[in-house]
C-alpha cells in the first residue's frame, strides 16, 4: 500500500532515494515532486551520492578501539528470538498467523511456551511458519529449542505452583486441539 508522502520521515525518504538503482536527474525530480518538504536534504544526498568512491585509508588506533568497544558491548547483550516475536504479537496478529498456517491458535501458544518437540514439526510447516514471521527455518528451530524464558509462560491463579507440561509432538498438539484427521494428515505430510 502506498504510504502518504507527508507521513514518511525524512530519514526514510533519504534512505529510499539512496537505494534507488539510479541517481540521475529524473530520479531526483521524482523525489522532489513527491517530497518537496525534504528538497534540500535530497539535493545534499544526491550530491553525496555523485562523489567518486573514497581512496582506501588505514583505520586509526581510535577506530580500532571503537571497534573493540562496540564488539564488547554487542557480544554481551541479550538477544531477541523469533519466539519473543511470537510472544509480542497481538491477538489479532496471532489470529492472522494461525489463519495463514491453517491451524488453531492454541498450537502457536504451545510453540510460544516451548511445549512442542521441535524434531516432530514437518519441514514444510516450519518453512511456512518462518515465512509468516519473516525469519529462517534455522532461527525458528533454534528459538524453539532454546530454554524457555519465564516471562513468556502464561500465569495461573492456583493454590499450587503449576508444573510445566512436558513437550509433546506436533501431531499430539494437533490431536489435543481437535484438528480433524484429514487436516492433520495434510499438515503432517508437509515437506516430509
Amino acid at each position, binding site marked *: 500500500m502506498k504510504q502518504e508522502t507527508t507521513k514518511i520521515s525524512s530519514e526514510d525518504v*533519504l534512505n529510499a532515494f539512496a537505494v534507488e538503482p539510479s541517481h540521475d536527474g529524473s530520479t531526483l525530480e521524482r523525489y522532489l515532486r513527491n517530497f518537496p518538504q525534504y528538497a*534540500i536534504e535530497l*539535493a545534499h544526498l544526491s*550530491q553525496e551520492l555523485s562523489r567518486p568512491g573514497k581512496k582506501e585509508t588505514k*583505520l586509526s588506533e581510535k577506530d580500532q578501539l*571503537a571497534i573493540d568497544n562496540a564488539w564488547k558491548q554487542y557480544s554481551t547483550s541479550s538477544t531477541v528470538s523469533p519466539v519473543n516475536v511470537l510472544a509480542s504479537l497481538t491477538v489479532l496478529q496471532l489470529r492472522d498467523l494461525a489463519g495463514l498456517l491453517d491451524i488453531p491458535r492454541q498450537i502457536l501458544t504451545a510453540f510460544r511456551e516451548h511445549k512442542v518437540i521441535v524434531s516432530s514439526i514437518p519441514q514444510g510447516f516450519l518453512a511456512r511458519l518462518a515465512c509468516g514471521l519473516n525469519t529462517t527455518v534455522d532461527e525458528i528451530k533454534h528459538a524453539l529449542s532454546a530454554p524457555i524464558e519465564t516471562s513468556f509462560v502464561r500465569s495461573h491463579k492456583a493454590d499450587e505452583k503449576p508444573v510445566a507440561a512436558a513437550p509433546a509432538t506436533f501431531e499430539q498438539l494437533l490431536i489435543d486441539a481437535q484438528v480433524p484427521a484429514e487436516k492433520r494428515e495434510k499438515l503432517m505430510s508437509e515437506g516430509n
Partner: protein
Amino acid sequence: MRATSIAPLRKTDTEGKVYTRLPETESRLVELYALSRDDLAARCAIQDRDDKDYVPSECLVTLVREHRSRPLDACSEVIFRALLERVLRGLPQTETCNGEDLTQGNVRDEARFRFLKMLGEDRQVEYVEALDYFEVRFQDALASLRVNAQRYVYRRENPLDPVEIDPETGELSEKVEKAAGMFDPFDSKEIGNFDYRSQLDAAIDDLPGIQKAIIEMIRQGIPIESKETGKVNISNVLGKTPKTIAAHRYKAYAKLRTKMTKGE
C-alpha cells in the same frame, strides 16, 4: 551445512513494495550459508576488494543479522568487526592537512553511533527495518547515514543557523557577478580526475546549505523556473523567486571558482 533459507527483507519502499536484495547478493549468500563457520570467518576476514572471495558489505550485514538470536561465536566476531571496519572506512575522515576537523569527527562519531544503535536494537529489541537498506545497497545507504548525521551535527553546532533558512538575496554585487562569470565547475574536462573532484567536493561542502542544494539541482538538470504546469523546478520546491535562486547560483559558483582557481 548451516541455514538453508534466507529471510526476506521487511522494509517497504515509498510505494509500499517490500525491498529485496540484489540477485547477486542473494546468490552470494547462498554460497556463504553453505560454508562452515570457520570457512565463513576466513572469507569475511578478506580485506582485498579484488580477491574473488571478498565478501560484499551487503552480505556482512545479512550475516550479522542472521545470527542475531543465536549465541555468538568466534565467527560472529570476525563478521561484526569486518562490517564495522567497512562502515568506518565509509565515514568522513577527521584528519585533514590542517589537523583534525572536529565537526567531521563529530559526524563520524554520530554516524557510527547510529549504525551501532541499529545493530544493537536489531539483536536486543526487535527487527530494525532501517538496516534493510544496508542489505540492498550498502554504500548508498551509508551515504544516507552520513547525510543524516551531518544534518544532526550541523544543527547541534549551529542552532541559530539552520541550513534550510536563508535570507532572500537581493541584487548581486558587480564583484560577485564578475567572479562567477560563466564558470561552471562541473563543465570542466577535469571532472573525471579524482583529485579535481575531491577538491571540488570539499569546496561544495563549505557552501551554505541552500547554495549546495541549488547547484546540485542545476547539475541534475532541474530548471530554476518552468512555465510548464506540474514540472518540478527549483523555485517551486524551495519556495523562492527565480531571481533569488539565480543569485544564489551565482554566489555559489563565484565561491567555487575562487577556491578551485585559488583566487587567480
